[in-house]
């Protein structure tokens, strides 16, 4: 009883936690397919893909992606090489200096990103002036500054990833290579580097992701190379659109895709290794090991295939699907609702007028109610008839003017 209660509460906690973690992403993804121009999941109006096409027509976003890729590539190269050099140095530095050295190379992780951005900007600006270069030299270009600024701390992440693998490296392997006649460079290239390859790949991915999403440092250094993140931040700060949700959705899908692919390969490798272990020598040397199928016993691979198919189906639908009918329907429905309300309103107003007319036949103006002048156009049946043909909808008439349509308010103002 007690135990099952405990288990239940654990699962409940996990559910809430992951809802907090994943919920926002799910909701954001949903808003990418909803037609209102303010990203919202509720109320659901129409399934639409227009925000994706809006996204692909946004030149600033596209330019931002290009800059992000450029800067990401530079950062990956610089921070992985520096991280590798830093990690190698850590394994052989003079013991007395080790702690200090470690503190220095780990510090950038803890230094606030804005501080890194500022210090990079200030330092290279000074170097640039000392060397007597103009404001358009390489050293003051946003590309260089951003790569350098980001690499300062991304190299620390890379170093941590690489050092973890390096600790499992047997230095005797390098010595063996040297002993067999290799130069230091050959030993590095042929023995250490292949050993480090998985860690280098992880570090590179990590570095690229960190660079791609960096804002705090980049915002001071980007100059004439605004990255995607910078562009997004500008957009988000000054008004949000479902086109951003669409971009987020694409990134979420790519991420899930990459994660599943990674899982599937790991699982695949495990299965192959197990098969090889169980195989006999004769089978191995004859190359006749029966390897398990790609999908067998590999949930991640199955999911990967499912996600791929889903993506293809969705993209296929998107090219033929047109939400126009639905949007028109919704609009029509809204129009009807608005008309109904207007009708009601008119009826009430007429009643009022009658009432008033009975009470004071001459004094009241025919258009009547106070404060309604701004809504006048909307309520005018003639104006309303003109509206449906226009693309703009006066921005979600139901919510924005909901209060104004409340009969009670009107009645109050009428009195």
């Amino acid at each position, binding site marked *: 009883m007690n135990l099952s209660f405990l288990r239940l509460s654990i699962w409940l906690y996990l559910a809430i936690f992951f809802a907090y973690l994943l919920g926002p992403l799910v909701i954001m993804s949903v808003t990418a397919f909803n037609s209102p121009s303010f990203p919202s999941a509720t109320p659901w109006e129409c399934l639409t893909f227009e925000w994706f096409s809006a996204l692909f027509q946004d030149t600033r976003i596209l330019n931002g992606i290009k800059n992000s890729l450029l800067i990401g590539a530079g950062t990956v190269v610089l921070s992985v090489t520096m991280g590798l050099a830093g990690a190698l140095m850590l394994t052989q530095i003079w013991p007395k200096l080790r702690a200090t050295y470690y503190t220095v190379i780990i510090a950038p992780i803890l230094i606030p990103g804005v501080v890194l951005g500022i210090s*990079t900007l200030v330092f290279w600006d*000074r170097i640039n002036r000392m060397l007597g270069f103009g404001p358009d030299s390489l050293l003051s270009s946003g590309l260089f500054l951003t790569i350098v600024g980001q690499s300062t701390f991304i190299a620390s992440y890379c170093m941590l990833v690489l050092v973890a693998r390096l600790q499992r490296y047997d230095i005797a392997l390098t010595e063996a290579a040297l002993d067999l006649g290799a130069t230091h460079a050959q030993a590095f290239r042929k023995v250490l580097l292949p050993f480090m390859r998985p860690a280098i790949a992880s570090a590179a991915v990590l570095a690229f992701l960190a660079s791609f999403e960096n804002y705090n440092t980049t915002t001071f250094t980007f100059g004439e190379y605004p990255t995607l993140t910078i562009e997004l931040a500008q957009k988000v700060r000054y008004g949000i659109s479902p086109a951003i949700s669409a971009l987020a959705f694409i990134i979420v899908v790519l991420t899930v895709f990459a994660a599943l692919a990674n899982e599937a390969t790991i699982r695949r490798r495990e299965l192959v290794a197990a098969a090889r272990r169980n195989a006999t020598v004769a089978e191995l040397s004859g190359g006749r090991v029966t390897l398990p199928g790609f999908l067998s016993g590999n949930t991640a691979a199955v999911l990967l295939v499912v996600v791929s198919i889903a993506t293809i189906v969705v993209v296929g639908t998107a090219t033929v699907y047109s939400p126009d009918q639905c949007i028109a329907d919704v609009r029509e429905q809204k129009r009807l609702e608005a008309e109904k309300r207007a009708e009601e309103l008119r009826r009430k107003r007429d009643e009022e007028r009658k009432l008033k007319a009975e009470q004071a036949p001459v004094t009241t103006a025919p258009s009547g109610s106070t404060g309604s002048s701004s809504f006048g156009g909307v309520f005018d049946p003639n104006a309303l008839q003109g509206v449906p043909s226009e693309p703009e909808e006066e921005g979600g008439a139901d919510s924005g003017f909901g209060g104004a349509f409340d009969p009670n308010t009107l009645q109050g103002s009428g009195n």
Partner: protein
Amino acid sequence: MPRILKDFLSRNGTGPGLVMLGLVLFWTVGLIILPQLSMLDFSFRPNLPPPEMGGPKDVYTLENYKYLIYGPEGGSQAYNTVDLMVFFRTLVAAACVTVFNLIICYPIAYYLGQTKGNHIRVFALMLIIPYWINEILRAFALRIIFGETGVLNTIFTGIGLFDTPFDFIRNDYALYAGLGYAYILLMIFPIYNVIESLDHNQIEAARDLGAPWWRIHWRVVIPYAKPGISSGCTMVFMLSAGALAAPQILGGPSSLWFTQLIYQQFNDSSDWPQGAAYAVVLLVTCVLLVLAVMRLFKVNMGDIGK
């Protein structure tokens, strides 16, 4: 020193050794140490147009630091209350976010670290995936949820909890939720790493001795996980205090984050030395706070980043 250098080069080969040394020096000196010193130096200088830099007016001054405390010269108030309030609010809020994160993450980290099975991998994946997605987009997602016509308000007004939409953003709830959200992974992973290496038998033994669950955690698990906890807290605190995107997107218009002041000085008022001084203050304060807390809990620098 030359002997050490000689040994180093003979161990790594002259070419590779020099490349490696060059890279490490470029990183540590050229990217880490010198820029920070340069920023420090810059923060003690007056704001001059480039032609006058290095000229007779370019002298060291405490002006930029005085500004943080006393405000503009001849200002109406004795102290720069606005900026100082922002500064303290940032630190306190960052500390609160850190504690909040620790409380919600510890059970998860403990569960992931001490439970075996395939579903743990799935959970780990679900933890990581949100962090592969842009920081801005994560803040954006929260803005969709917390906005005035956002999901939360629609739901709450829909079920009749609120009469009118509640402004989460103006009241900074969105900001705190966003900051907490942004750094969950950085809190979970260090703690998880440590707890994973804790022998489950220790917990069994404590339970066997009749210890209630909270005492097991207080006396066995938490002391063991201390390096992970301090590492996670340090990172979350530093990153929250230094966050810029979340406050810009989720913060209310009236309440600023200290990094936003720095940003304004750089981008809006073009007063770099002033911004640098504020950055130095932020960096030094955070480092001192973290060191003090690490001292208090007796953990050392080597545990960070594990």
